[in-house]
């Protein structure tokens, strides 16, 4: 026991060592500490009046504003509608991008036809498309979801195609020599090998959805977290603005952690 204790580098040393090894628990506490540290710094800045309180409310005031939004202004339904928009667009992107990306990686003709178009649209800034979606689709849900979809789909499809292309040639040839048909190779070998990378890419894409959501909700909406932030800004309710931002951050953090957890459970072999 003593020998172990003596020879294992201390926790602190592990944390600062180049590519050091730590346990997941340690990582969690380091993460929490970093959050708490940031909050303390923020509180300090507010207490010391580094900026006027109407511009920089402290964490306590922001949480109070968040509570008030939730209780008095039905903020939960705004969160609900925003989450719905994000997930509707994200799922629509994924459902089309996964098969299309697989086809692009498998058939030259599909790639040849779609890649130039995808590359073209991929470089268009999403805010530039807002007027067009409003003219075409109005200011309803369809318009917002379409905007988010445009922002993510064209990136995602290329990521998926790249993931599929990185599947070793040998794995595909194994499929051929075991008598699998092309569709079976795609389903049982290509999709399965690329799955861990794909889930990571989906997680990252989901984050982008939130970015574009705010663009969509700021421009034309009467509900959603982005709308709440914008209306609060109009009355210089900085605490509410920050409460909205905090909410988005927390949702992002939570979603990310959940997907990471799922990733670890699904891909135990990694």
């Amino acid at each position, binding site marked *: 026991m003593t020998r172990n204790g003596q020879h294992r580098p201390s926790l602190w040393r592990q944390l600062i060592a180049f590519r050091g090894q730590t346990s997941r628990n340690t990582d969690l506490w380091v993460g929490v500490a970093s959050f708490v540290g940031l909050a303390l710094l923020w509180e300090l800045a507010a207490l010391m009046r580094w900026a006027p309180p109407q511009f920089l409310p402290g964490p306590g005031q922001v949480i109070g504003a968040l509570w008030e939004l939730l209780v008095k202004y039905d903020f939960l339904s705004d969160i609900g509608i925003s989450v719905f928009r994000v997930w509707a667009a994200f799922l629509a992107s994924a459902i089309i991008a996964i098969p299309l990306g697989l086809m692009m990686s498998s058939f030259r003709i599909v790639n040849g036809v779609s890649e130039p178009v995808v590359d073209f649209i991929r470089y268009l800034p999403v805010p530039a498309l807002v007027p067009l979606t409003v003219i075409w689709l109005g200011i309803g849900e369809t318009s917002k979801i379409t905007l988010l979809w445009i922002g993510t789909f064209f990136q995602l499809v290329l990521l998926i195609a790249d993931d599929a292309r990185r599947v*070793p040639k*040998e*794995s595909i*040839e*194994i499929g*051929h*020599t*075991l*008598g*699998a*048909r092309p569709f*079976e190779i795609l389903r*049982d*070998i290509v999709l*399965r*090998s690329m*799955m861990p990378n794909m889930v990571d890419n989906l997680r990252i894409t989901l984050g982008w959805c939130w970015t574009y959501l705010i663009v969509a909700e700021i421009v034309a909406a009467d509900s959603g977290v982005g709308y709440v932030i914008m209306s609060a800004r109009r009355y210089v309710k900085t605490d509410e603005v920050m409460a909205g931002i905090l909410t988005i951050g927390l949702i992002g953090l939570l979603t990310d952690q959940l997907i990471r957890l799922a990733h670890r459970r699904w*891909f*135990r*072999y*990694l």
Partner: protein
Amino acid sequence: MKPATDPKQDFLVIERVTKEFEASDKDGKSIRVIDGVSLSLKAGEFAVFLGPSGCGKTTLMRMAGGLDHPTSGEVRLAGEVVTGPDRRKGMVFQAYSSFPWLTVLGNIRFGLKYRHDVDAAEKDRIARHYLKMVGLEDFADFFTNRISGGMRQRVAIARTLAAGPDILLMDEPFGALDAQTREFLQVQLLEIARAEGKTVIFVTHDVEEAVFLADRIFMFSARPATIIEEIDVTRTLGARRVLETKQQQDFFRLRNHVLDLMRVQARKTEEIFRPEAVGE
């Protein structure tokens, strides 16, 4: 006129096969990698394709598997022209040989996934049979990245055999393994090949491995590949090989002979590459 062939005698026939690749340089001359190679294998024979790196032996083996296509000439398996890969031509690669998301048993069972001639219970039985044959029963439920490289190659061999191929094509399957594991797997492979009566094409550039495993060695020249010598190993060493075979005088003699051939070809390979190096 071609004489009628006996499918037992000429189980796999490679006939005047030539392979050219389009060159990427500006004069657009294509590169000939295989130059009119003919050979034929008996059913149950263990053939080794031996030659310097990059000589085209792997390409030839891949053509036997239908994974590459000859520019001219043809490959016939049991009298039928090979046009593409299928379950009758099993392949074992050097790397990426097993699927990490499946267990050892799952990988072996994958070999049977596309067989519609056997039901699920029979698939389980066959998979367990080959699991036992490669001696991995204790590791049945391990994911393949938790086991050693040697074990992974045994999984690949078992999976390939489970698919029930007529011929086993192996592309330097032990190339990435350490010497001891390699030796152990060579013995095991020979036992399995004999027990199953499988026809095997085994590609390697390791002379000792070639002499130990082969019924017949096809010695390839530097690029473009032609067969420079066919060595009937079984006539000298007999069909039965054990580790001690490697200590026999006959084994040494044969190995040295093949090593000499190999050195000459390796030197030629050097010469092929030299003018380009000077020219640039």
